[in-house]
Protein backbone atom coordinates (compact mmCIF):
# COMPACT_ATOMS: atom_id res chain seq x y z
CA UNK A 1 0.00 0.00 0.00
CA UNK A 2 2.83 2.34 1.00
CA UNK A 3 4.79 1.38 -2.15
CA UNK A 4 1.74 2.01 -4.35
CA UNK A 5 1.31 5.44 -2.79
CA UNK A 6 4.93 6.32 -3.43
CA UNK A 7 4.60 5.21 -7.06
CA UNK A 8 1.46 7.30 -7.53
CA UNK A 9 3.21 10.38 -6.12
CA UNK A 10 6.18 9.84 -8.42
CA UNK A 11 3.89 9.48 -11.41
CA UNK A 12 2.00 12.62 -10.47
CA UNK A 13 5.18 14.67 -10.21
CA UNK A 14 6.35 13.23 -13.53
CA UNK A 15 3.10 14.33 -15.09
CA UNK A 16 3.64 17.87 -13.80
CA UNK A 17 7.23 17.97 -15.08
CA UNK A 18 6.34 16.48 -18.47
CA UNK A 19 4.54 19.57 -19.88
CA UNK A 20 7.51 21.72 -18.86
CA UNK A 21 9.89 19.30 -20.62
CA UNK A 22 7.66 19.41 -23.71
CA UNK A 23 7.68 23.19 -23.69
CA UNK A 24 11.47 23.45 -23.84
CA UNK A 25 11.96 22.04 -27.35
CA UNK A 26 8.88 23.86 -28.61
CA UNK A 27 10.24 27.14 -27.23
CA UNK A 28 13.60 26.40 -28.81
CA UNK A 29 11.97 25.85 -32.21
CA UNK A 30 9.91 29.03 -31.90
CA UNK A 31 12.98 31.01 -30.85
CA UNK A 32 14.84 29.60 -33.80
CA UNK A 33 12.10 30.70 -36.15
CA UNK A 34 12.21 34.19 -34.70
CA UNK A 35 15.96 34.37 -35.24
CA UNK A 36 15.43 33.38 -38.86
CA UNK A 37 12.85 36.05 -39.58
CA UNK A 38 14.59 38.82 -37.67
CA UNK A 39 17.32 39.17 -40.27
CA UNK A 40 15.13 39.14 -43.39
CA UNK A 41 16.19 41.23 -46.34
CA UNK A 42 18.14 41.10 -49.55
CA UNK A 43 19.99 43.67 -51.60
CA UNK A 44 19.35 43.45 -55.33
CA UNK A 45 21.78 44.93 -57.85
CA UNK A 46 21.42 45.48 -61.57
CA UNK A 47 24.28 43.81 -63.42
CA UNK A 48 24.01 45.31 -66.88
CA UNK A 49 27.28 43.74 -68.07
CA UNK A 50 26.02 40.21 -67.46
CA UNK A 51 22.33 40.84 -68.20
CA UNK A 52 20.97 39.91 -64.79
CA UNK A 53 19.76 41.02 -61.38
CA UNK A 54 21.89 39.64 -58.56
CA UNK A 55 20.73 39.12 -54.97
CA UNK A 56 22.94 39.46 -51.91
CA UNK A 57 22.14 39.26 -48.23
CA UNK A 58 22.52 42.49 -46.25
CA UNK A 59 25.70 41.00 -44.81
CA UNK A 60 27.17 40.53 -48.26
CA UNK A 61 26.57 36.84 -48.91
CA UNK A 62 25.77 36.05 -52.52
CA UNK A 63 22.29 34.50 -52.50
CA UNK A 64 21.29 34.28 -56.16
CA UNK A 65 23.73 35.27 -58.92
CA UNK A 66 20.99 35.53 -61.52
CA UNK A 67 17.71 36.18 -59.76
CA UNK A 68 16.34 37.72 -62.94
CA UNK A 69 17.73 37.28 -66.40
CA UNK A 70 17.16 40.55 -68.26
CA UNK A 71 19.11 42.32 -70.96
CA UNK A 72 21.14 45.38 -69.84
CA UNK A 73 19.19 46.25 -66.68
CA UNK A 74 19.44 49.81 -65.40
CA UNK A 75 16.97 50.26 -62.61
CA UNK A 76 15.10 48.00 -60.20
CA UNK A 77 12.13 49.03 -58.09
CA UNK A 78 10.56 46.96 -55.32
CA UNK A 79 6.84 47.67 -55.32
CA UNK A 80 5.08 45.49 -52.76
CA UNK A 81 5.64 41.92 -53.88
CA UNK A 82 6.57 42.92 -57.42
CA UNK A 83 9.95 43.81 -58.86
CA UNK A 84 9.87 46.32 -61.71
CA UNK A 85 12.96 46.47 -63.91
CA UNK A 86 13.92 48.88 -66.69
CA UNK A 87 16.72 48.34 -69.16
CA UNK A 88 18.81 50.14 -71.76
CA UNK A 89 16.64 48.69 -74.53
CA UNK A 90 13.59 50.73 -73.54
CA UNK A 91 11.75 47.91 -71.81
CA UNK A 92 10.08 47.85 -68.42
CA UNK A 93 9.18 44.42 -67.02
CA UNK A 94 7.55 43.02 -63.90
CA UNK A 95 8.78 40.02 -61.91
CA UNK A 96 7.88 38.16 -58.75
CA UNK A 97 10.30 38.43 -55.83
CA UNK A 98 11.30 34.84 -56.65
CA UNK A 99 12.60 36.18 -59.97
CA UNK A 100 9.89 34.58 -62.06
CA UNK A 101 8.70 36.81 -64.89
CA UNK A 102 5.20 38.22 -64.53
CA UNK A 103 5.35 40.31 -67.69
CA UNK A 104 8.89 41.05 -68.90
CA UNK A 105 7.72 43.85 -71.22
CA UNK A 106 4.83 45.87 -69.85
CA UNK A 107 6.37 48.90 -71.58
CA UNK A 108 8.52 48.93 -74.69
CA UNK A 109 10.05 51.91 -76.41
CA UNK A 110 12.32 51.99 -79.42
CA UNK A 111 13.70 55.43 -78.60
CA UNK A 112 13.83 55.66 -74.81
CA UNK A 113 15.65 54.12 -71.87
CA UNK A 114 13.96 54.59 -68.52
CA UNK A 115 16.54 55.42 -65.89
CA UNK A 116 14.35 55.63 -62.84
CA UNK A 117 10.93 54.35 -61.81
CA UNK A 118 8.42 55.13 -59.07
CA UNK A 119 4.98 53.79 -58.24
CA UNK A 120 2.18 55.89 -56.78
CA UNK A 121 -0.99 53.90 -56.21
CA UNK A 122 -1.64 52.00 -59.41
CA UNK A 123 0.44 54.29 -61.60
CA UNK A 124 4.03 53.97 -62.68
CA UNK A 125 6.28 56.99 -63.37
CA UNK A 126 9.45 56.70 -65.45
CA UNK A 127 12.20 59.19 -66.28
CA UNK A 128 13.53 59.23 -69.80
CA UNK A 129 16.92 60.86 -69.57
CA UNK A 130 17.59 60.89 -73.30
CA UNK A 131 14.60 62.91 -74.48
CA UNK A 132 14.11 64.87 -71.26
CA UNK A 133 10.66 63.65 -70.31
CA UNK A 134 8.81 61.82 -67.57
CA UNK A 135 6.13 59.33 -68.58
CA UNK A 136 3.18 57.94 -66.65
CA UNK A 137 1.83 54.42 -67.10
CA UNK A 138 -0.44 52.14 -65.14
CA UNK A 139 1.44 49.40 -63.29
CA UNK A 140 0.12 47.07 -66.00
CA UNK A 141 1.92 49.17 -68.61
CA UNK A 142 -0.93 51.11 -70.23
CA UNK A 143 0.04 54.66 -71.13
CA UNK A 144 -1.57 57.37 -68.99
CA UNK A 145 0.46 60.41 -70.05
CA UNK A 146 3.23 60.50 -72.64
CA UNK A 147 4.90 62.70 -71.68
CA UNK A 148 3.59 63.68 -68.27
CA UNK A 149 6.11 66.51 -68.14
CA UNK A 150 9.22 67.79 -69.83
CA UNK A 151 12.53 68.35 -68.08
CA UNK A 152 15.11 69.50 -70.64
CA UNK A 153 18.08 69.11 -68.31
CA UNK A 154 18.25 65.35 -68.19
CA UNK A 155 15.76 63.93 -65.69
CA UNK A 156 17.36 60.93 -64.04
CA UNK A 157 16.50 60.31 -60.38
CA UNK A 158 12.93 60.05 -59.17
CA UNK A 159 11.54 59.99 -55.65
CA UNK A 160 8.00 60.11 -54.34
CA UNK A 161 6.93 61.60 -51.05
CA UNK A 162 3.21 61.78 -50.43
CA UNK A 163 1.66 62.81 -53.71
CA UNK A 164 4.66 64.70 -55.05
CA UNK A 165 7.39 63.68 -57.43
CA UNK A 166 10.97 64.87 -56.92
CA UNK A 167 13.05 64.77 -60.07
CA UNK A 168 16.82 65.05 -60.16
CA UNK A 169 18.13 66.70 -63.32
CA UNK A 170 21.49 65.13 -63.98
CA UNK A 171 22.72 67.70 -66.50
CA UNK A 172 21.05 70.73 -64.93
CA UNK A 173 22.20 70.07 -61.39
CA UNK A 174 18.77 70.70 -59.88
CA UNK A 175 15.97 68.89 -58.15
CA UNK A 176 12.44 69.92 -59.09
CA UNK A 177 9.15 69.08 -57.41
CA UNK A 178 5.93 68.19 -59.25
CA UNK A 179 2.56 66.78 -58.32
CA UNK A 180 1.80 63.35 -59.71
CA UNK A 181 -0.50 65.06 -62.22
CA UNK A 182 2.54 66.83 -63.64
CA UNK A 183 1.99 70.29 -62.17
CA UNK A 184 5.16 72.06 -61.13
CA UNK A 185 5.25 72.73 -57.37
CA UNK A 186 8.78 74.05 -56.89
CA UNK A 187 11.24 74.59 -59.69
CA UNK A 188 14.86 74.18 -58.64
CA UNK A 189 14.07 73.09 -55.11
CA UNK A 190 17.78 72.33 -54.92
CA UNK A 191 20.37 73.97 -57.18
CA UNK A 192 24.10 73.87 -57.72
CA UNK A 193 24.48 70.12 -57.67
CA UNK A 194 26.90 68.26 -59.87
CA UNK A 195 25.13 65.46 -61.69
CA UNK A 196 22.46 64.52 -59.17
CA UNK A 197 21.37 60.97 -59.80
CA UNK A 198 19.31 58.40 -58.01
CA UNK A 199 17.30 59.32 -54.96
CA UNK A 200 15.64 57.51 -52.10
CA UNK A 201 12.97 58.79 -49.73
CA UNK A 202 12.70 57.36 -46.27
CA UNK A 203 9.09 57.14 -45.16
CA UNK A 204 6.97 60.22 -45.62
CA UNK A 205 9.48 62.60 -44.05
CA UNK A 206 10.17 65.28 -46.64
CA UNK A 207 13.47 66.15 -45.02
CA UNK A 208 14.74 62.62 -45.51
CA UNK A 209 15.24 62.37 -49.25
CA UNK A 210 18.73 61.22 -50.07
CA UNK A 211 20.34 61.61 -53.47
CA UNK A 212 23.61 60.62 -55.02
CA UNK A 213 25.76 62.95 -57.06
CA UNK A 214 28.37 61.91 -59.53
CA UNK A 215 31.36 64.18 -59.72
CA UNK A 216 31.20 65.38 -56.13
CA UNK A 217 31.27 61.80 -54.94
CA UNK A 218 28.73 62.71 -52.37
CA UNK A 219 25.43 61.47 -51.10
CA UNK A 220 23.37 64.27 -49.73
CA UNK A 221 20.05 65.06 -48.14
CA UNK A 222 17.47 67.14 -49.96
CA UNK A 223 15.99 69.92 -47.84
CA UNK A 224 12.40 70.91 -47.52
Amino acid at each position, binding site marked *: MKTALTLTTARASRRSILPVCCMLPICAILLGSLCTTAFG*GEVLLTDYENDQI*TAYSTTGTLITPSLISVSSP*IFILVSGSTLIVSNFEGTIGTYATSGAAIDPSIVTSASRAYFSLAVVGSNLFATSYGDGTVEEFTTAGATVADPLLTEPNGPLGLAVVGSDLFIANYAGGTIDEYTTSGTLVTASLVTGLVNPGYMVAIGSDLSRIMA*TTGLESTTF*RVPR
Partner: protein
Amino acid sequence: MNASLITGLDPWGITTDGTNLFVENFDSGVVGEYSTSGAAINADLFTVPFASYDIAYLDTGSGIPEPGTIGLLGLGMVGIGLLTPKRRRQTWALSIRTLRRRRL
Protein backbone atom coordinates in the same frame (compact mmCIF):
# COMPACT_ATOMS: atom_id res chain seq x y z
CA MET B 1 20.65 70.77 -47.06
CA ASN B 2 23.44 68.53 -45.93
CA ALA B 3 25.63 68.54 -49.02
CA SER B 4 28.15 66.17 -47.56
CA LEU B 5 26.08 63.55 -45.84
CA ILE B 6 28.48 60.89 -47.01
CA THR B 7 31.68 61.80 -48.83
CA GLY B 8 34.47 60.02 -50.63
CA LEU B 9 32.13 57.86 -52.68
CA ASP B 10 31.54 57.19 -56.33
CA PRO B 11 27.86 56.58 -55.76
CA TRP B 12 25.20 55.68 -58.24
CA GLY B 13 22.55 53.48 -56.70
CA ILE B 14 21.07 54.18 -53.30
CA THR B 15 18.41 52.34 -51.31
CA THR B 16 17.15 51.92 -47.77
CA ASP B 17 15.81 49.18 -45.57
CA GLY B 18 13.76 51.82 -43.78
CA THR B 19 16.46 52.43 -41.20
CA ASN B 20 19.81 52.55 -42.94
CA LEU B 21 21.13 53.48 -46.36
CA PHE B 22 22.88 51.15 -48.77
CA VAL B 23 25.02 52.97 -51.32
CA GLU B 24 26.63 51.31 -54.30
CA ASN B 25 29.85 52.68 -55.81
CA PHE B 26 29.83 52.35 -59.56
CA ASP B 27 33.50 51.87 -60.39
CA SER B 28 34.73 49.93 -57.38
CA GLY B 29 31.60 47.81 -56.92
CA VAL B 30 31.75 48.44 -53.18
CA VAL B 31 28.43 48.48 -51.35
CA GLY B 32 28.44 50.38 -48.09
CA GLU B 33 25.91 50.70 -45.29
CA TYR B 34 25.32 54.02 -43.57
CA SER B 35 22.93 55.51 -41.07
CA THR B 36 20.57 58.17 -42.42
CA SER B 37 22.68 60.74 -40.60
CA GLY B 38 25.62 59.70 -42.74
CA ALA B 39 27.61 57.70 -40.22
CA ALA B 40 29.32 54.66 -41.69
CA ILE B 41 28.02 51.39 -40.31
CA ASN B 42 30.08 49.34 -42.71
CA ALA B 43 31.52 51.37 -45.59
CA ASP B 44 32.80 48.19 -47.22
CA LEU B 45 29.90 45.84 -46.62
CA PHE B 46 30.70 43.79 -49.71
CA THR B 47 32.05 44.18 -53.22
CA VAL B 48 30.32 43.05 -56.38
CA PRO B 49 32.41 41.93 -59.36
CA PHE B 50 30.47 44.06 -61.82
CA ALA B 51 29.45 47.66 -62.47
CA SER B 52 25.91 48.28 -61.30
CA TYR B 53 23.62 51.21 -61.94
CA ASP B 54 21.08 50.53 -59.24
CA ILE B 55 20.53 48.84 -55.95
CA ALA B 56 17.24 47.97 -54.24
CA TYR B 57 16.33 46.53 -50.86
CA LEU B 58 13.90 43.64 -50.80
CA ASP B 59 12.32 42.75 -47.47
CA THR B 60 12.01 38.99 -47.70
CA GLY B 61 10.98 38.50 -44.07
CA SER B 62 13.01 35.29 -43.94
CA GLY B 63 16.71 35.74 -44.31
CA ILE B 64 19.41 33.15 -44.36
CA PRO B 65 19.17 31.00 -41.20
CA GLU B 66 21.75 32.08 -38.67
CA PRO B 67 24.03 29.39 -37.19
CA GLY B 68 22.28 29.93 -33.85
CA THR B 69 18.96 29.17 -35.51
CA ILE B 70 20.17 25.82 -36.77
CA GLY B 71 21.59 25.08 -33.30
CA LEU B 72 18.31 25.89 -31.60
CA LEU B 73 16.37 23.78 -34.06
CA GLY B 74 18.77 20.91 -33.40
CA LEU B 75 18.33 21.35 -29.64
CA GLY B 76 14.58 21.23 -30.08
CA MET B 77 14.74 18.02 -32.09
CA VAL B 78 17.04 16.39 -29.51
CA GLY B 79 14.60 17.41 -26.76
CA ILE B 80 11.70 15.81 -28.58
CA GLY B 81 13.78 12.71 -29.23
CA LEU B 82 14.67 12.34 -25.55
CA LEU B 83 11.08 12.65 -24.45
CA THR B 84 9.75 9.93 -26.75
CA PRO B 85 11.33 6.85 -24.92
CA LYS B 86 9.97 8.10 -21.57
CA ARG B 87 6.45 7.90 -22.92
CA ARG B 88 7.07 4.32 -24.07
CA ARG B 89 8.36 3.33 -20.62
CA GLN B 90 5.31 4.86 -19.03
CA THR B 91 3.01 2.85 -21.31
CA TRP B 92 4.99 -0.30 -20.53
CA ALA B 93 4.72 0.39 -16.75
CA LEU B 94 1.00 0.90 -17.04
CA SER B 95 0.63 -2.44 -18.83
CA ILE B 96 2.42 -4.26 -15.98
CA ARG B 97 0.22 -2.56 -13.43
CA THR B 98 -2.88 -3.69 -15.35
CA LEU B 99 -1.59 -7.30 -15.37
CA ARG B 100 -0.94 -7.19 -11.63
CA ARG B 101 -4.45 -5.91 -11.00
CA ARG B 102 -5.88 -8.77 -13.05
CA ARG B 103 -3.91 -11.31 -10.98
CA LEU B 104 -5.25 -9.78 -7.79
